[in-house]
């Protein structure tokens, strides 16, 4: 097998694991360097009039939805499966659906922001699912299959 030019596949997953530190970024302690805790993630919802997207760096209350049974900052994201690799892809998906139970969100919203609530609410991704409202009902965001090519985050 000949040598080749590539970004190492393991690095793609390790980015999501926080295994590399190229700069002097300030992080919140993960308790132990040898047995660190997993960061907590959350998911907040945004009105269609908000500006959440690639340039978003952290959770913001600006443009966030409000309504019955919705708390500012959103809900916890279940993260029981660590990032991994397959082929040349690093990937990760929340390990359960994101659920907002019996909410009333009357003003149209269209985007969920996943962010790291342990690390200064740093933004991870924004997902636009089209304008919607919920009335005395449950909003369920089902996650895709956690595999290369289908996972919520793919670093290909």
């Amino acid at each position, binding site marked *: 097998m000949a040598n080749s*030019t*590539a*970004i190492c596949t393991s690095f*793609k997953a390790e980015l999501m694991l926080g295994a590399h530190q190229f700069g002097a970024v300030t992080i919140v302690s993960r308790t132990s360097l040898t047995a660190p805790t997993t960061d907590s993630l959350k998911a907040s919802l945004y009105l269609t009039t908000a500006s959440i997207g690639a340039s978003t760096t952290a959770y913001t209350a600006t443009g966030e939805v409000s309504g019955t049974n919705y708390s500012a900052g959103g809900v916890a994201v279940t993260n029981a499966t660590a990032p991994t690799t397959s082929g040349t892809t690093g*990937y990760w998906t929340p390990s359960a659906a994101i659920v907002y139970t*019996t909410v*009333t969100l009357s003003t149209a919203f269209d985007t969920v922001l996943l962010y790291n609530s342990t690390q200064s609410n740093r933004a991870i*991704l924004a*997902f*636009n*699912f*089209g304008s*919607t*409202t*919920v*009335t*005395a*009902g*449950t*909003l*369920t*965001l*089902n*996650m*895709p299959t956690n595999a290369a*090519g*289908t*996972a*919520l*985050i*793919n*670093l*290909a």
Partner: protein
Amino acid sequence: MNLVQTTQGLMDLSRLEVKDVVEVGDNYRKIATEYRLGGELVRREVTVTALRPIETVAEQGVING
């Protein structure tokens, strides 16, 4: 009796008109289930399924390129 939560409290499902509204976008499928009582919307629940991943290509630069 099958009760569901509505804007008017718990209500027997048999009293309500139920309709699914399906929308498919570039990267999602959305099903909104609307419950109406005499034409008035009393419950609307939504399920969104992500259809495509959010993908980033990690590109390597060229050394002395």
